């Protein structure tokens, strides 16, 4: 089996990791309560989805 000849230095490791980036989710505002919600998700504040009461707030968590 092939083996690494030398240890990857901290610099080399960290340079590789410069491309590991977190991305922001696309957000919208709830049409009912105005809270910030993720697209295609039930509003966690009021339980509305696409202008309709889908679930009661207690279940929505």
């Amino acid at each position, binding site marked *: 089996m092939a083996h690494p000849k030398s240890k990857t230095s901290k610099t080399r490791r960290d340079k590789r990791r410069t491309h590991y980036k977190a991305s922001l989710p696309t957000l919208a505002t709830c049409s009912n309560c105005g809270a910030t919600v993720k697209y*295609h*998700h*039930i509003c*966690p504040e009021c339980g509305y989805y696409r*202008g*309709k009461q*889908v*679930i009661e707030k207690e*279940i929505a968590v």
Partner: protein
Amino acid sequence: MRHNKKFNHLGRTSSHRKAMLANMASSLIESKRISTTLAKAKALRTYVEPLITKAKDDTTHSRRVVFSHLQNKNAVSELFRDVAVKVADRPGGYTRILRTGNRLGDNAEMCIIELVDYNEAMLTSTEEAAKPKRRRSRRGGKKEEAPAAEAAKQAKPVAEKESATAEAEEVKAVEDVQPVEETEEKAEAEVKSEASAEAEAEEKPADEASEEDKKKEE
């Protein structure tokens, strides 16, 4: 190679997966709505919908077939007694999956999966909202164009003359840029372009009139 093998194993052996889906299907049928991860919900959808379809035909055989999948007599009787009646005139699509965010701990995408016919709030509101947005084909685009045409018509006397003259000027400008080979042809072309611009101006009102007629018919 794994080409076209899209089936989600959910990280389980076949028996484990079947047992889990049977339990989830029983829970869904008995409580009408369950909260689970998105991947499991999607797997459950393909598992439980054929069973619900089978429940529409209430025979001993179909009961046995469904029982072999669910392994839960309470769920089977609930399915054939109550659920089958409710979904009787629904041609498939008995479940609804709605995302609820990510779980604390492992950040799994969570969702609720429910039987469509048991969500009373959604049923009433969909019946009200269903009528206006029925057309999904692209042929219905004329409805949207009609108001625009009307608006254009109001501004017609000024805007159309301007556009016609502007077009003619543009055509001239384009021709002026071209190297002059035969002046006679160029003059002819200019005359033609002006004529065509006029023709366009004449055609526009006709188009609008026809669109208006269509709108009236609608």
